[in-house]
């Protein structure tokens, strides 16, 4: 071929195309290892930003030099990427994180993961939180995931605003004054009456998330029937919309960060990890926040797992790495590094967690979150739960932004949820 300008352009174009394809392969190759997931190709470890402590992961690579650990922080929609990779059947990581909210789905495809009980997980589980381990258990008892962290819920509040309203400010006293939802609303009404610019509820969905975590049965039961119209669910709904009818809802769903910073939201219920969100949203309010138990009992919101896909060849080796990364000491380290609240209760006694938090006025927040973590009720979450629950959250938004009648909203939510449940194959 004579070297003309056209040939050169054509050649370099094809070369660029080829290089693009090759580099695409090599990127996934280094992170994914071989199709079968052999140990000779190294141990690929997938997690998302903030899912594990980067320092602990880096230390794991030196701790297990022969395993060839190659950590990959996967951005974007983690579940979707893991799902596509598992469906594709190649470049499957040897160890991967699974987010707590995605576990109900991955539990339905248990054959894609290794039963950790075959590797001796029961012995470890015995000393840990039964409700958390149960989240990653199939109905026939396979243990698919090793818990990384948990999200026990509590009530964050502005001490200065409560003081301004002449209300109790000490965490124990606040918890005592708000031990039931009725008490909480009496407390909240007084707060809003004395300080009209502040509200005890940021948005209805926050309350609803906590209340449905407290009832025994969510939207779809274990035998796959629709339970979104139960008396308990209606009770949970009524408890939630009460915030609206009493006029104590700030309705700050679209400007939550600004509302946290400006004191519009004086009380915010959420999981342990939500402390970081508040710190980021309202750094100027440092020292004014406290944390107390939320009404009735704590629930869990979020908290993830490490799993071993069934394609992994060296399952024992992978389990050794998981055990090391999620050892008590390293879980405490992860809390220090990335505010990942340990799933292992033994870590709560370590200095990393027992110190006071300046943002919370020096309060030892573990005194609230620790006991809360122990008391979280066990609850079955179906794979279709997220889809079936969506209409309730949509209708709550209609109640708070469009002034929709709560009864009408409830009826519409149940009707829509029933339709979606049917589409999802629920009886």
């Amino acid at each position: 071929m004579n070297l003309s300008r056209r040939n050169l352009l054509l050649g370099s174009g094809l070369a660029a195309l080829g290089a693009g394809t090759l580099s695409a392969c090599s990127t996934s190759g280094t992170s994914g290892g071989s199709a079968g997931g052999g140990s000779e190709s190294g141990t690929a470890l997938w997690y998302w930003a903030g899912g594990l402590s980067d320092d602990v992961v880096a230390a794991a690579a030196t701790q297990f030099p022969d395993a060839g650990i190659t950590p990959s922080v996967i951005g974007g929609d983690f579940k979707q990427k893991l799902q596509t990779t598992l469906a594709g059947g190649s470049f499957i990581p040897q160890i991967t994180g699974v987010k707590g909210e995605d576990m109900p789905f991955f539990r339905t495809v248990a054959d894609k993961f290794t039963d950790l009980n075959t590797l001796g997980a029961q012995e470890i589980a015995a000393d840990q939180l039964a409700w958390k381990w149960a989240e990653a258990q199939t109905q026939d008892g396979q243990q698919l995931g090793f818990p990384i962290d948990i999200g026990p819920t509590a009530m964050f509040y502005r001490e200065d605003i409560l003081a301004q309203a002449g209300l109790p400010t000490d965490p124990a006293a606040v918890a005592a004054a708000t031990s039931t939802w009725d008490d909480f609303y009496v407390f909240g009404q007084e707060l809003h009456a004395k300080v009209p610019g502040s509200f005890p509820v940021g948005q209805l969905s926050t309350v609803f998330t906590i209340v449905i975590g407290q009832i025994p049965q969510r939207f779809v039961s274990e035998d796959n029937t629709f339970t979104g119209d139960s008396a308990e669910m209606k009770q949970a709904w009524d408890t939630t919309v009460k915030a609206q009818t009493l006029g104590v809802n700030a309705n700050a769903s679209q400007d939550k960060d600004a509302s946290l910073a400006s004191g519009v939201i004086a009380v915010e219920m959420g999981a342990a990890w939500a402390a970081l969100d508040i710190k980021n949203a309202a750094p100027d309010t440092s020292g004014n926040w406290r944390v107390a138990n939320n009404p009735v009992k704590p629930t869990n919101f979020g908290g993830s797992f490490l799993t071993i896909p069934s394609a992994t060849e060296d399952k024992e080796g992978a389990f050794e790495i998981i055990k090391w990364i999620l050892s008590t000491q390293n879980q405490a380290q992860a809390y220090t590094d990335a505010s990942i609240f340990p799933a292992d209760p033994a870590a709560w006694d370590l200095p990393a967690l027992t110190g006071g938090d300046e943002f919370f006025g020096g309060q030892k927040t573990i005194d609230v979150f620790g006991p809360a973590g122990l008391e979280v009720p066990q609850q079955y979450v179906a794979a279709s739960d997220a889809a079936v629950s969506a209409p309730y959250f949509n209708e709550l938004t209609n109640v708070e932004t469009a002034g929709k009648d709560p009864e009408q909203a409830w009826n519409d939510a149940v009707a829509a949820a029933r339709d979606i449940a049917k589409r999802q194959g629920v009886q």
Partner: protein
Amino acid sequence: MSSAGVDRGFRRVSAKPPVRAGAPRGRLRFWPQYVAVSPFFLLFALFGLFPVGFSAWLAFHRWDGLSPVTFAGLEQFRFLAADPTFRKAVVNTIVIWVLSTVPMLVMSLAIAALLNSVRRFKTFYQVVLFLPSVTSIVAIAIFFKAIFNNRVGLVNQVLEGIGLPAVEWLNGWWTIKIVLALLMTWQWVGYNAIIYFAGMQAIPGEVYEAAKLDGAGPLRAFWSITVPMLRPVILFTVIISTITGLQTFTEPQVLFGTNAAVNPNSGGPGQAGLTMVLYFYQQAFNYNNYGYGAAIAYGVLAIVGVFALVNWRLVARSEK
């Protein structure tokens, strides 16, 4: 006899050389050209044609993304026909599209006419106009979310500053659509203006000179010369805006992308920002309902097809 023999011989003579010697060389002669255009067709087959076919097949099945696929017949389409949320999404999409496209194209035309009449800094204006369409849509959406914030947004501060009541932009059925339409208008108005401007450059100057001699003012010239002669360009922009407008996805996703764990991609308060493609994404990727997602995608295709046809009919008829 002899004439038949001549005939046969003539045929043989004329047929022989091109078929035996010419054809293989003819096919091979163009190989660099075929190779040169092949990347598009290969990539299109892989990433365009295959997904189109696969999702058509998927629309008749149930699939959660990992489990075995099961046949569902017309079930997904039956759900789609009866789905009030999909109807809501269709209405939302069409309203947002009308709110954005109609003012946008009128403004583009006016801007193009202005651009056509300026003498200096033409390239500078062109660059400025084109800039929004190459800016990251996610960044713009985040910016819009901040300035239209219900409580602390710039727009509300200005409104209150001049004594008007603040508007809860991101809460109302209409206001959500207006914000989305403004976002899309801002992004594409310059792009369409540049296209119109290019079309105007192609209109011969003599036509305007003749009109001027006949006593037509600039407005008359615009309506009687520029607009009619731009008709093919206008048809192009209307169809392109229809197709992109009916596939609006990123804007509402970023504007109302709430905490992914609870009710993700719902389209905001009252689901007023739930567009057809956002609904498709939610069903397929958030709720692992790939079969239903594929059915929604084909619903979107049908609606876009109908709109493109109507557009073409309207503009083509007025051309006669």
